[in-house]
């Protein structure tokens, strides 16, 4: 009997780790309890990742000229590590969180919904005055009810189409004239035949969650998403099936290289010139310049072709935001920093110069840097390409708190299509049904 108890106890041991980090974060992170601290005094910590962290760090001396009393420490937590770290902190009722948190649009609704009070309401601190300062759709993202402001927008990334102009030229295809993705697939066949390069690359086994980025872009170009604005599941909508079918057609024609392994594979593919097109959002231009500086002049950028003839070529595919932890004792000082970084055009211009990170702050685009010809991109005015997309009418997308679950099911479905030739309509329907069962949301058909 003792042995039996021992065996069960050993099994129970596996439970411990989880509980230590669980909870609702309701009480301790209650947020607005206690003073917000002073607006120009205090010691604050900022969590971000790689490029943006470096840019914020560079802004600190300037910030300190205006606010000498605030000591800022910017920490590069890394992406995707930062999401686990923020989740753990929020689940622990705000314990150990930084004062300022950099959060992607894919995580923001989940954090807000699952950890009420985990993020401070920025409206009382003065965020409301910037309601109209940002690209359209942004305010709805950070303030869904129009009252509470969960964060302030930073990046607004539009769908882009970075391409190797030299490869297109060799294949005798005019990249600028491509109107639809169907035409692009035909062009891809020419490129493959004449240069050996693939049209584009996808992380086929979905080793990272962002393996579905391209699928999502095709979806958003059609104004569609995983959920509608009412929160119903639209994972197997005609738009969705169309997007997955395009991917399958490309793959079946041998035009898709495998980027298994995620970011590292993407970088080595970029350096080796495996693919002629990188269907990536605004910020990726900076990465290309950084990774293959010797290829200056060979690259160009345009907005992606439409999914259906005459359809939209503009979509805001993602955005990032700065939020203040609800449990922070220096919320006012943290707000001062956010305000300095995000609402002052000079800060955003400097960040754009440094890493090509596109601001959501519309006034920043008045600066000449967005209208200069880029030597790397063959003398193109890259900033204007994306500004055009940002100004185009673009619907808001509802990420909901269940985005992570939806994304997981989508990447699984995509892997089935790419690795074993599954039928797009069938796998998407299965995914939608399963998401419905998991989340209790209605599948809209």
């Amino acid at each position, binding site marked *: 009997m003792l*042995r*039996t108890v*021992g*065996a*069960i106890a*050993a*099994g*129970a*041991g*596996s*439970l*411990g*780790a*989880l*509980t*230590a*980090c*669980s*909870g*609702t*974060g*309701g009480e301790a992170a209650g947020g607005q309890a206690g003073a917000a601290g002073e607006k120009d005094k205090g010691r604050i910590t900022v969590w971000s990742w790689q490029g943006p962290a470096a840019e914020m760090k560079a802004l600190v001396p300037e910030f300190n000229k205006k606010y000498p009393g605030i000591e800022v420490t910017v920490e590069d937590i890394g992406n995707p590590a930062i999401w*686990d770290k923020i*989740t*753990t902190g929020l*689940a622990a009722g705000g314990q150990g969180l930084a004062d300022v948190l950099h959060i992607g649009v894919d995580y923001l609704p*989940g954090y807000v*919904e*699952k*950890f*009420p*009070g985990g993020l401070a309401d920025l409206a009382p601190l003065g965020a409301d005055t910037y309601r109209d300062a940002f690209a359209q759709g942004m305010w709805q993202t950070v303030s869904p009810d129009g009252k509470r402001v969960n964060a302030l927008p930073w990046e607004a990334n539009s769908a882009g189409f970075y391409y190797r102009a030299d490869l297109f030229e060799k294949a005798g295809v005019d990249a600028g004239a491509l109107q639809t993705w169907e035409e692009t697939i035909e062009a891809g066949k020419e490129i493959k035949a004449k240069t050996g390069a693939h049209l584009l690359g996808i992380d*086929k*086994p*979905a*080793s*990272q969650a962002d393996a579905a980025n391209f699928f999502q872009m095709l979806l958003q170009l059609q104004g569609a998403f995983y959920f509608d604005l009412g929160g119903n599941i639209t994972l197997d909508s005609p738009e969705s099936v169309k997007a997955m079918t395009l991917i399958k057609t490309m793959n079946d024609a041998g035009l898709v290289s*495998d980027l*298994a*392994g995620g970011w590292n594979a993407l970088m*080595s593919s970029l350096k080796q010139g495996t693919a002629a097109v990188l269907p990536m959002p605004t910020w990726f231009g900076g990465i290309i310049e950084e990774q293959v500086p010797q290829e200056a002049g060979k690259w160009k950028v345009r907005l992606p072709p439409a999914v259906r003839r005459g359809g939209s070529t503009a979509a805001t595919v993602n955005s990032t935001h700065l939020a203040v932890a609800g449990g922070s004792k220096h919320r006012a000082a943290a707000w001062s920093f956010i305000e300095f970084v995000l609402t002052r055009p000079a800060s955003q211009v400097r960040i754009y110069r440094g890493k090509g990170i596109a601001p959501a702050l519309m006034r920043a685009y008045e600066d000449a840097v967005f209208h200069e010809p880029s030597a790397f991109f063959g003398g193109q005015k890259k900033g204007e390409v994306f500004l055009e997309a940002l100004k185009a009418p673009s619907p808001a997308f509802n990420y909901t*708190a*269940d985005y*992570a*679950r939806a994304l*997981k099911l989508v*990447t*699984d479905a995509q*892997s*089935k299509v790419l*690795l074993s030739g599954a039928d797009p309509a069938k796998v998407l329907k299965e995914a939608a049904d*399963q998401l419905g*069962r*998991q989340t209790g949301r209605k599948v809209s058909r």
Partner: protein
Amino acid sequence: MTSPSTASAPSATRAGRGVRAVAARGTARRPRAGRRAAPYLFVLPALLLFAAFKLYPIGRSFVISLHKTVGGSDRFVGADNYARLLHDPLFWTALKNTAVILAVQVPVMLALATGLAVALDSTALRARAVFRLGFFLPMVTGLVAYGIVFSVLLNKDYGLVNWLTGLVGLDPSPWLTDPLWAKVSLGLALTWHYTGYNAVILLARLQSVPAELYDAAAVDGAGPWHAFRHVTLPGLRPALLLTTVLSTIGTLQIFDEPYVLTGGGPDNATLTIGVYVYQNAFKYFDFGYASAIAYALAVLIGILGVIQFRFLGEKS
């Protein structure tokens, strides 16, 4: 048969002397109650830590498993989370994957470990300590570090393994990107990591098997194989039971390797229960459901542990 009087007399005297001795020492130093309490005082800190960091979380996790977070507050839902398990295809996939690893990898690893232990025990081997260290070393390697090393080694396009198999004319294998190969890779990584550890446990036991038994077997005309079957294996039984149970528990909880190597993919081919618990808790913020999965796992481990003790334990 000795008569009761002769048998009990000396023992009574011994007991009497013992009591007197204890009493004498007891009164000389400190009261009896203090002596009784002393061991409990010594284990108290460990007990308190155990209660705070093991017992409490285990209990709390059960409470959480009966709740669901709705709009930021916990709502009691009874056994809903457990009912959900039964209809969750991903849970069953995870369970199946874990079972496959358990059924294939654990026996292979323990067989290897046994062979290794016998080899490392052999006096014919020079520099035994170096070999023992070499095989044990993977155990102290950080889980994430070795996961990353394996993912580099097994990379389809740039990995060392495919480069080597390429030298002998084999096509590159999609180690981490094909559902079947991903399982194989996971098994390889696990075997590399834990074989030496199990071999060391088996080796320790092996060294307590009396040499006379081998001499006796040799006299009876047993060759090396018979000696292994009839002396070594029975001698190893308790250690084999221990390693089997430890490996079973370890395998059922396996998390690090699939998390780092494959992320549970492709298409959930390497999704284990551990990874699924993690995803539900930290990716989907569904702590109630994650706790329910963890409890299902704990019960499963308990049941398997009992079965293993029944089968392997009783004959010892």
